């Protein structure tokens, strides 16, 4: 017996016709620029264009001999790993606590509040942070009232990475919270009821029922976020950093931008970009493989 097709066999061409605009635009704007990666292997000269002298891996060798580059890798990993870790711990905690709340109305109101910062641009957030974190800003005023000396959140290289980590978690934890809450609503309430009969306290319920049932979602979210471990947040860092904190705050993306566009070192900038892109691609593929294996999650 012939298997039924999911498409209209008679007018097959129309399906391909539908794809034309998408394919054409994607080809133009995503594939044509790919030829630009060869800049990374050349000593790019604007006048000669892509026919510039070929230098092989020289740009990469130069890069890895630069302490300013190797430190950006370390900074990127430091900032993004902490963001990932706290970006799981905080939303899970809040979601579990929200789940314990009795009033559904209040719970929904709380959800609404924590989800707001997530949709504002980093430009707006940077403006807000610059205002409240300045030496005369609200936070330092509060610290002064508590008798603590003023903290240079954006200008002190020791503090800066944590300013980035905490503000990012603050901006984004609403998103994670809602994902985990959605997973929690799927839990069968009878599980809680029967454990109540066994005399379990609420803390025991959380430990024995809620967390284990959340685990698959936690693992899935963790694995998926691994793919973006080299993205420490360009929009955020670029709009908040300054030369004073480059030592600890300069990340790969800001480095590429400074090198490639602000300093016109086109070849070296392209080399960093290519390096990052390759490592990221491997990370993304690995993380999706893992997600498929561990949680049965497939995107395609």
């Amino acid at each position, binding site marked *: 017996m012939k298997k039924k097709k999911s498409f209209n066999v008679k007018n097959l061409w129309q399906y391909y016709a539908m794809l034309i605009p998408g394919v054409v635009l994607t080809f133009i704007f995503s594939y044509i620029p790919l030829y630009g990666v060869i800049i990374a292997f050349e000593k790019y*000269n*604007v*006048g*000669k264009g892509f026919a510039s002298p070929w230098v092989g891996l020289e740009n990469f060798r130069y890069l890895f001999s*630069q*302490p*300013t580059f190797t430190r950006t890798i370390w900074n990127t990993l430091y900032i993004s790993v902490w963001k990932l870790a706290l970006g799981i711990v905080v939303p899970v905690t809040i979601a579990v606590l929200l789940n314990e709340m009795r009033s559904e109305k209040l719970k929904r109101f709380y959800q609404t509040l924590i989800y707001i910062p997530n949709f504002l641009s980093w430009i707006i957030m940077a403006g807000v942070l610059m205002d409240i974190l300045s030496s005369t800003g609200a936070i330092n005023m509060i610290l002064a009232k508590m008798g603590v000396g003023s903290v240079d959140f954006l200008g002190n290289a020791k503090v800066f990475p944590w300013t980035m980590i905490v503000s990012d978690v603050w901006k984004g934890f609403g998103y994670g919270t809602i994902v985990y809450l959605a997973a929690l609503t799927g839990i069968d309430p009878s599980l809680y009821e029967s454990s109540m009969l066994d005399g379990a306290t609420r803390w025991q319920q959380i430990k024995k029922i809620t967390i284990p049932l959340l685990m698959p979602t936690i693992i899935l979210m963790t694995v998926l976020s691994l793919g973006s471990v080299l993205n420490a947040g360009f929009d955020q860092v670029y709009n908040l950093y300054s*030369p004073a904190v*480059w*030592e600890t705050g300069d990340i790969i993306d800001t480095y590429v931008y400074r090198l490639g*566009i*602000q*300093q*016109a070192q*086109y070849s070296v900038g392209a080399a960093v970009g290519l390096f990052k892109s390759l490592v990221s691609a491997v990370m993304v593929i690995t993380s999706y493989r893992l997600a498929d294996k561990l949680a049965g999650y497939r995107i395609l």
Partner: protein
Amino acid sequence: MKKLSTIGTAGIAALMAVCTLTGCMSKPTAPTNNESGRVEPPADIWAPYDQTVTVTTMGEENSGTEFQGDDDYGNNPWYRAYKERFNIDLQNKWISNDYGTKLNLAIADKDIADVFYVDSARLTTLYEAGLIMDLDEVFDSYASDVLKQYRKDYADTWETGCFDGKLYGMPQMNYGIIDQFQYVWIRQDWMKECGFEEPKTMDDVIKIATTFAQKYGGYALPECQTLENLFRLALSWGAHPGIWVTKDDGTIEYGTIQPEMKEALKQYTQWYKDGIVNPNFTTLNWDKMMQGMINGECGVIPFAQWFGYNPLPDLIKNQGADAIFFPYEIPTQDGSPIKGSVTFNNNGYVVIRKGCANPEAIMKIVNFYIYTVNDAVGKESNEYLSSLHSFNYPNVVRGTRIINPMNDYNQYLQVKDAFDRWQAGEDVDTSALGTNVSKYNSCVNWITSQDPNGVGDFLQQGNDRSAYGIAKKYVDNKQYVQDAKWGPDTPTLQASGSTLNDILIEGFTKIIIGEKDIDYFDELVQQWKTAGGDQATKEINDTYGNK
């Protein structure tokens, strides 16, 4: 389906409304360069063209210019002058608030204007890409005599705009080395009360400073996290921190790591121990240090020539006009004449696009700016000149202006001369002062009404006791050490940014506060070398050595 078409119609209607609102952001009519559109120039370099010549430029949005009336970047006194005098229509390809980025993109795109300014790194990029013109021919034929004289007088600076001996970028230079010297500034009312004379030795300076601290409270010497006052006073020991010095054997080394600096640091550490240097300096940034000065916590400070502009006006508003500070020479350890440090200082390079049809039109524009600052006084009305030079209008032509490195020196001579005559009760013809009249007026205002806004000009150039008055002697007698790095940074220096200096500043601070002893200096030098200092030294010697 009906709902859908309603949404669609609404969407399109909204879109049209927005389009009308913003004029659909019509692409600004970018002036195109007509390659074949060469207009024959007149023989006289100051004469106008018969036909209008269009020249394009790209520039930086600067926030200092106070545009008057309907003026803007494309229509202002300078652009109008070009049109009226030479029949040149200067058009802006774009004006950006992020010039460096936009310029790099334009270069990558090979979409550049006829004339603009660049830094030395970009000059090299453009030269290697073959996008800019060899200027020798047009310079020889159309540069004014004054401009040609600049090239002769500052040959070493003009050299940095050349490749293979050919001129590709005209250096925009700076206002002069007279601005670069350091002084000890001392508070006058206290000095008189205590009966002190001008200090002849560093001990005198310390005596004055400590006496002030005992008598009026506070501390003897201010300082902040960047140790900038240490670096100024180090000149007394013959150290030249921050610049590259040529040793006796002809090699070049970094000034901050020389033995003289160690000597200065040793004494400074002792002063800190004795409570002479502000004990809290590690917690102070520049602004906070100056806040202390404004509050009258200290009466002696090593500083540059512009102390009178910032923070002195605030200090005077706070402490009264008698609290004025005067600059004094920094005394040397052995009593020899002090030598300041002079660095290479160039604002950028004017370049012309290869293929520009009328490069001589650009030379006319460049000549005109120089004319207005040097020899227009008397030939043009004061009103005309100040219409060009007031409200920070010169910033608008940042891309095409070349500054006279004798600008501030000559200005000092003029202003001081007029001011001396005024003080002697003579009539002063201010029309001869041209654009310098505002400096003169400030000096007069300070004396007549003690206007704090005039004290800066007064102390910079009002008399022999002014900062320029002292510095004139240094310039005339060549009493300074010139940075051996007479040109742009080498790649390692560019890449390491401030990190190399930060190693030294952090280490020096540890020595001063007693966390490490003075021999830690040698360890620091090693750290500095391994962190890239050796590489930088090698590059500097390769690039600038044995000239």
